[in-house]
């Protein structure tokens, strides 16, 4: 029978042995060496039946299929755009996936999305060699005009959104800002009033910093009063 050496939800660092024995299976961010399962990153242990995985506390965004992300145009090629979505590689947005409207092949691509334009896009494919395909055909996938973009750790995104969007709802309501959070940790904020914009950014930074404290929703509500 296998033996779990660390408690559930406990923190481990790389190289730490989590499980001894063959009855458990390694899932995300852990690996097997002989009969041991070992942590690969700093994270919290999560044992689900026989699956052992880590919820990482650090590291940056790993592209996943069907994630809705916010990207910025970094380069333009003959057939599309290269977007920065916070991965080590740029993601490609192909011409035919760029818009639900027809785009002529000879069109000037900078007229559609120029350098540093911010867009919402969905990941359609991630290859093993690191290529990421994006699409902008679909509801809600558009170019974002104006506003400002801030970057937070992708692992903090669930906290910023909150349970069923509760946290993001508070921020939107109290600051009167438009806020869009991408799965990759890019957050776009727009408001008529720069003071409100600043307030929203400060709030998001606070959530990022204190993502682990309990009763954060109340704290945020108090801050935005």
């Amino acid at each position, binding site marked *: 029978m296998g033996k779990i050496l660390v408690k559930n*939800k406990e*923190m481990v660092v790389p*190289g730490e042995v989590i499980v001894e024995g063959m009855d458990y299976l390694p899932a995300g961010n852990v*690996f097997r060496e002989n009969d041991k399962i070992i942590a690969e*990153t700093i994270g919290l242990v999560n044992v689900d039946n026989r699956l052992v995985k880590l919820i990482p506390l*650090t590291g940056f965004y790993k592209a996943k299929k069907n994630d809705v992300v916010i990207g910025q145009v970094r380069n333009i090629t003959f057939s599309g755009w290269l977007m920065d979505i916070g991965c*080590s590689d740029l993601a490609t947005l192909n011409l035919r996936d760029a818009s639900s409207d027809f785009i002529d092949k000879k069109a000037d691509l900078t007229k559609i999305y120029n350098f540093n334009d911010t867009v919402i896009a969905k990941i359609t494919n991630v290859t093993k060699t*690191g290529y990421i395909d994006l699409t902008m055909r679909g509801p809600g996938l558009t170019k974002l005009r104006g506003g400002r973009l801030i970057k937070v750790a992708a692992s903090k995104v669930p906290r910023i959104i909150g349970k069923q969007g509760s946290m993001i709802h508070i921020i939107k309501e109290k600051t009167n800002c438009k806020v869009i959070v991408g799965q990759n940790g890019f957050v776009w904020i727009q408001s008529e009033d720069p003071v409100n914009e600043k307030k929203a950014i400060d709030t998001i930074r606070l959530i990022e910093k204190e993502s682990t404290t309990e009763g954060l929703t109340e704290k945020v509500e108090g801050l935005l009063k």
Partner: protein
Amino acid sequence: MSYTKRKDGRKFDEMRKIKAEVGVIKNANGSAKFQIGDTIAIAAVYGPRNLYPKFLQNPEEGKLRCNYNMLSFSVDERIRPGPSRRSKEIGLVTERALSPTVNLKEFPNAVVDVFVEIIQADAGTRCAGICAAAMALADAGIPMKDLVSAVSVGKVGDKLVVDLDKSEEDYEEGATDMPVAILPRSDEISLLQLDGEMEAKEIIKALEMAKKACLELNKIKKEAIRKKYKGEGK
């Protein structure tokens, strides 16, 4: 005359006082500071990011690139800033000491840059640099098999000692310095250099001492990492 007592009153197998801190540089993806006695190293990790020139890219695996630098005020007499033959070598051995532990399969065509800066030097800088770099890599979230630990062992006069300081390295009756980096879980050695003379028997004994010291170092490093991320989760 034999070497009977260490200047700072340490035991022969005792390391200097160690301080470790993670997350010291805000702009880096991961960073750490490691202090052993009067030697202080800071390490910063950037990336994985795109690697240029393009011919250096490897589509099968990411690349680890280490850079070691001693700041001009880190030693008693000012050293000329910028890369030198020595810093190039140490950058390379740091890279080789760390590369068996990092898993960069997920980052094809990319590079992970590690910058090690020595802000104060009192011997054992490459070992301090490796320790700092290992912590910084973990902080950056690079997948790793283990946290490499490094310490210098050696022979001062006729005694085998752990963690030599500068005065011991310059001992007038001759001193030998042997930096060792060990993967603590598997006891594999990823760095072994030797400057001076030592008998084969002594080397084996010194390696045993290094292993013991590295396990101790590993505990301190893990503690430092835990300290930064404490309170996360739950």
